């Protein structure tokens, strides 16, 4: 009890201190340094209308490679940790006829929508991460409706690795053509596409397609691992 009260007091003191420090920062002051540069140069340098996408994939593309890797580790880690205890689904009955038919009909549309999100990442809000997550929800729905459904592991697991390899490969092609790792050679050297059209923004759509496939397969893989329960746990 005393410990808890001490902890609360300690947190309050720290919170007061931080709040005090934050209060001295002038509100609404324009402190954008790189931010301004991005907004002013984004179109000519990257060819993307969506400035956020341009920052994520082009200017700070290396961080995104890192984030994709984090997700890859999460998926590999879950697979490694649940390796021996993937047994069986705990669901006792299948979904109803309506649920099954409905999810079967909806599946291609959801996947199409996911693909739309990541292909148009440089034009509209969205991109590879939400697009991939949308695709994974399509599989989640199938998993919920069908008791016996299982993804094709021979297809999904290699696909995860291959899309990661292609991301690194895109970076290496940039190095070979433009002279820098993750250099956008399509926009800056080949000058393909018009700003505002689907075919623009250099390698952003390519990378977002790779990320979309990667995120979709990885999240689906995680769903597959987690939805199965081991028999020992049940009893």
């Amino acid at each position: 009890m005393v410990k808890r009260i001490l902890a609360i007091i300690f947190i309050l003191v720290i919170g007061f201190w931080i709040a005090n420090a934050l209060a001295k920062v002038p509100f609404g002051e324009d402190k954008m340094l790189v931010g301004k540069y991005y907004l002013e140069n984004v179109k000519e340098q990257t060819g993307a209308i969506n400035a956020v996408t341009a920052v994520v994939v082009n200017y700070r593309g290396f961080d995104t490679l890192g984030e994709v890797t984090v997700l890859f580790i999460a998926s590999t880690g879950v697979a490694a940790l649940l390796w021996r205890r993937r047994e069986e689904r705990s669901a006792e009955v299948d979904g109803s006829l309506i649920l099954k038919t409905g999810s079967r009909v909806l599946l291609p549309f959801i996947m199409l929508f996911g693909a739309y999100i990541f292909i148009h990442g440089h034009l509209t809000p969205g991109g590879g991460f939400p697009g991939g997550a949308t695709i994974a929800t399509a599989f989640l729905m199938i998993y919920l409706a069908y008791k016996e459904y299982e993804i094709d592991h021979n297809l999904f697991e290699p696909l995860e690795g291959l899309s990661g390899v292609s991301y690194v490969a895109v970076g290496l092609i940039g190095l070979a053509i433009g002279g820098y790792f993750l250099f956008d050679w399509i926009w800056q050297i080949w000058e393909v596409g018009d700003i505002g059209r689907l075919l623009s923004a250099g390698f952003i759509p390519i990378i977002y397609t790779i990320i979309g496939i990667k995120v979709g397969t990885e999240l689906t893989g995680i769903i597959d691992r987690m939805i199965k329960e081991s028999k020992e746990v049940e009893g």
Partner: protein
Amino acid sequence: MIEHLPALVIAIPLFGAFITPLFRKRYNLAALWAILISGLTLVLVLLLEYQVLTKGMMIYVFGADKPTLVLPSGYRVPIRIMFQVDGIGAFMAISAGLMSFVGAVYSYSHLQKETGLEKYYTLLLLLTAGILGMVLTGDLFNLFVFLEIASIAGSALVGFRNYRGEASEAGIKYLIVSSVASLMVLFAVGILYGQYGHLNLAYLSKQITFNPLDMIALGLLFTSFAMKCGSVPMHYWVPDAYTEVPSGINPPLLVSTYASLYALFRVSFTLFGKITIDMATVGWIMSILGVLTMFIGVTMALVQKDVKRLMSYHAISQTGYMLLGVGVGLTVFHDKQALIEFGRTAMAGGVFHIINHIIYKSLLLLTAGALFYVTGTRNLNEMGGLARKMPITTISFMVGAAAISGIPPFNGFASKFLIYEAVYKLNPLLAIFAMVTSILTLASFVKVFASAFLGPPLEKYEKVREVPKPMIVAMVILAALCVLFGLFPDFVLDKIVYPAVDALINFIQYQSWGGLA
């Protein structure tokens, strides 16, 4: 090609890691692939170190030319992420490359009875990529991203033996500690970005004013990195993680711990380098934390019966030496005369101790893994009389134990001696604590040696034989390095340690990107 080394050093292990799952059940192929890739990475980091030593700091901007945004003051700022490789970064990169190679070689036979190994090797390569990114980057947010990569890969590997409850517990513990630490780092990065509008380390270090918000950022960064490098009082995750992780991962996991130590030094010396008054206080905090860490670590180690757990507590205790050495340097950082007189030597001792400790502690943990491999237990009371059966393991263990206790002519002596000598000039009491710790370390390893290797041969270990060749190769490489570093400390100090120390001291050079700005 040479100018692309910083990018390739990250791209090659990442590429290798993404390929590894394709091997699926062909575990031997996956192991050979991991050895190949980590060997290639080792060659690349050695080339990188050579470049940095001969040509000076390396700058690599991802996806564009050198710094592009020109400020009104004429100071050029990079818009994109960049790698800034100086002496200390390259120094840490060598450790990472070497240890992941040794770990991969060792794992080849150590883990033959396990399953799911393609995932194990994938995670090993990703852990390497994460450490390398952390130590090479010149961008604060990028540091956070690679910290995440290294810690998530590390925690998955700690829990890899998922049929053991203890391993899962250790994995979760490591994951929680790491996530708390990375969230605090992210918060600090947010504070700094909000104020200065940039994430570049060199730029931030030039702009920093040390207002209350910066103090909070320093506090958060210091705490989280100290937590991740296993300093007292946040050391509780170390014994669990080091004990439960498969022995082949111990070397890279050690380096990943010290990558956080590197980040701690980078933050104190470079990011907040120009703050003149308060850094002496931070230096004192670091030194005292160091003394506490070494003393508490070693006293906890004395009572352990589990051989790997005992060594893990020694790992905590040895981290204290590094904190003490570099902390003393930080205390006198802005006092030019004292810095030349003993500060630089103390820092050299601390930095040299990083690589020495990584080498001999990995060696010791690998021998512990070898003992576990043949006996199936880690309890010292159940072992005995193994010296005749496993001569090479025994000799490797003796080399490692002598090195960790600071007995000449092994490498531990070289760095500890530098630390004693320099710390004594700041405060004799600190040096005495360091020496007492060293004696206690020796006592504890004499106990391990006596109970595991000496004594009458036990009946149940009648059929025990020496461990397979790849494990021997890994141990012999490290034992040879222990002896070489101990016999020629001046060569190592001049070639890689002093350049690393000078890179930390000379933060003006870092701020100007090696003269680019």
